[in-house]
């Protein structure tokens, strides 16, 4: 088994364990699910290998639609699934499962996130991401947010031979809560 495959297996295992931990109820009482939907757009810097030096380019502008789940027993943990589409250059589509740890409910909320972005079309890309954001709730059910995310892609047919892709992106959007 190659080093990349073993790392990928370990990462997927850790992510699955974290998901199971969040979904596991603390007690027998019924949980109240909390659903949020967030829509955002962003871009940033892309870094990759070049001819003996690092190539820096603008990341393709993308839009992101996130479906976020939490429960009232552990409101600081959130699970999200994002649908992402790059709209600059070639149009691509991807899925980003995320695990978030927030500062808790309130008008202002900080959070950190871990994810595993997977771009499926037209080329494949897979990697990990980490970042953080700030949500400012203008209303209990409506807020504005901004995120800074670092993506590290190490697998996929869209990469150069033996190359990786690092993206430093910022996105801004709105978030609606259904609670």
């Amino acid at each position: 088994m190659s080093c990349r495959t073993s790392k990928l297996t370990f990462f997927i295992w850790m992510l699955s364990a974290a998901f199971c931990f969040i979904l596991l109820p603390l007690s027998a009482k019924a949980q109240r699910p909390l659903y949020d939907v967030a829509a955002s757009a962003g871009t940033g810097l892309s870094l990759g290998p070049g001819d003996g030096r690092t190539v820096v380019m603008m990341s393709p502008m993308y839009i992101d639609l996130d479906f976020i789940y939490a429960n009232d027993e552990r409101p600081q943990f959130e699970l999200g699934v994002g649908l992402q589409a790059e709209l600059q250059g070639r149009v691509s589509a991807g899925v980003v499962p995320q695990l978030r740890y927030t500062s808790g409910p309130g008008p202002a909320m900080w959070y950190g996130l871990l994810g595993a972005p997977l771009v499926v079309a037209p080329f494949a890309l897979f990697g990990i991401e980490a970042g953080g954001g700030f949500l400012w709730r203008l209303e209990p059910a409506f807020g504005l947010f901004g995120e800074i995310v670092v993506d590290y892609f190490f697998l996929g047919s869209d990469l150069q031979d033996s190359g990786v892709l690092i993206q430093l992106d910022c996105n801004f959007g709105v978030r609606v809560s259904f609670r």
Partner: protein
Amino acid sequence: MNCIYMKTCFIFIVVGVVTAGCGGDCIRHSDCKSGFYCDAGYCLKDISHNTDTEGVSSDDTLDSTAPTDSNTYTSDTSSDSSDTESETSTETNTDTHTDTDSDTDSRTDSDTATDGDTLDSDSESNSETETDSSSSTSTDTWTDTVPITPDTDTSTDSDTLP
């Protein structure tokens, strides 16, 4: 530089890098146009897909112009022989350089002989004239001839002593 100007320059540099990029044309294959792929930061034409289509038509063209192909082979052979000749001329140039060095050495030897003459007596201007003529020819053979000259000088010394 004023702080405001530095900040402005920094912003322009960042915006320029972000929009135009630096260090190459692409990072991943999808950064290139259709029919191109990304290699070492630059978009290259994807030959693997085009060869299948264009290879058949190019083969047909070669068959119809078969005599042209044979002529091309003949010209290739002649060009190879010319390449060999040019290499030989290069070696000759190297030999010429070596000859120049030996000329310089022979001049040095003639100066040494002149010094010896000066020590013995002042009337050895004739031998110096011979040294000049040998240096104009500047051959290794002349250098060997120069050591013979001190024998003549010795006889001259014996004449001076009485």
